[in-house]
């Protein structure tokens, strides 16, 4: 089943995307985006995995030990930081939406002009 981790990554992304499309609450939407983003962590780490290898930490083990790829793990750390910052910014926008329009339902957040007409 060497394909399974990639399939899980695709599935997690699909689930997150479905959540975003059907979301009725901005906070729920931000969490769905985080779920989607975790698919990329899974994909990166799966790519760098090596069978029967240990983590790339060489404390008290010989240098010739097989280890998984450290580069994708470093990339995943960057990915996590980017995910956190995006979440923080979107949550700040959600706070402002609640303060201005009194709702967190994206369907009720219509453009200002449309609001005046309807």
């Amino acid at each position: 089943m060497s394909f399974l981790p990639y399939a899980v990554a695709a599935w997690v992304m699909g689930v997150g995307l479905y959540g975003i499309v059907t979301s009725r609450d901005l906070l729920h939407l931000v969490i769905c985006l985080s779920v989607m983003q975790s698919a990329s962590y899974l994909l990166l780490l799966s790519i760098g995995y090596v069978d029967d290898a240990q983590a790339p930490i060489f404390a008290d083990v010989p240098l010739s030990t097989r280890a998984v790829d450290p580069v994708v793990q470093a990339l995943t750390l960057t990915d996590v930081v980017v995910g956190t910052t995006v979440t923080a910014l979107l949550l700040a926008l959600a706070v402002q939406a609640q303060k201005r329009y009194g709702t967190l339902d994206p369907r009720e957040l219509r453009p200002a002009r449309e609001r005046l007409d309807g």
Partner: protein
Amino acid sequence: MSDRVRLSVFGVGLAGLLGLMLWAFAGLPDFGDYAGPYGYILNRVAVPERSTTDVVTAVNFDYRGFDTLAEEFILFASVVGVASILRTLRGERTRAPDDDAAGRRVPETSLTVRVAGLGLVAPTILVGIYIVAHGQLTPGGGFQGGVILATALLLIYLSADYMTMRAVGPISLIELAEGLGGAAFALIGLSGLIAGGAFFQNWLGKGTVGDLLSSGTIPLSNAAVGLAVTGGFAFMLSEFLQQTLTRRRVRRRRSRRSA
């Protein structure tokens, strides 16, 4: 657009996306079979070259230090973004944290939460510093330790209240930590340019493998990033909590009724 139409449009798009993803994934190496040259080489050279036993940290703060500086700036930009989105706008006022419904019975924070929360503050700070300091030896580093350190402030909020939290970690101190950490990390990069000839060149002595003060500039970078991340996260926590004290004036809610 009705929900049904929207979902069917999404379904078509998702099918296309999943098809493309499956096609792309088919070109990936089999799971567990990756033989990327850079990872393999780094796993062999990081310990002899840099005395760093955690190769991920060696990649982040040395071989790929320039990228991590950009990553640190992403965090900084996000902190600035949160600060400007959540700034006090016209028509808003900050009020004392008085109770909206003074009549209701509010259960006080239980003694268990207070004692356990306060008791955990010191161990949390210790663990955070440990994780930052041992970044070059074991899993951890400035980013991970910084987040743990920022949660100490959250524990104070949990066991006391927002005003106590502000008194313990005043916003000016938090901003100072964020700015100093970011600047120090950039200066460490510049020092490599001056002393070694390349940005983020690891010019300090490598030390003994496994020592706390080994790996040259990597522990310094970890400390700088740890300070910046602590400041950044503490700032964002503080900003979001501050919002509970901010209210728009009632007369500006007129537009809401017409919607």
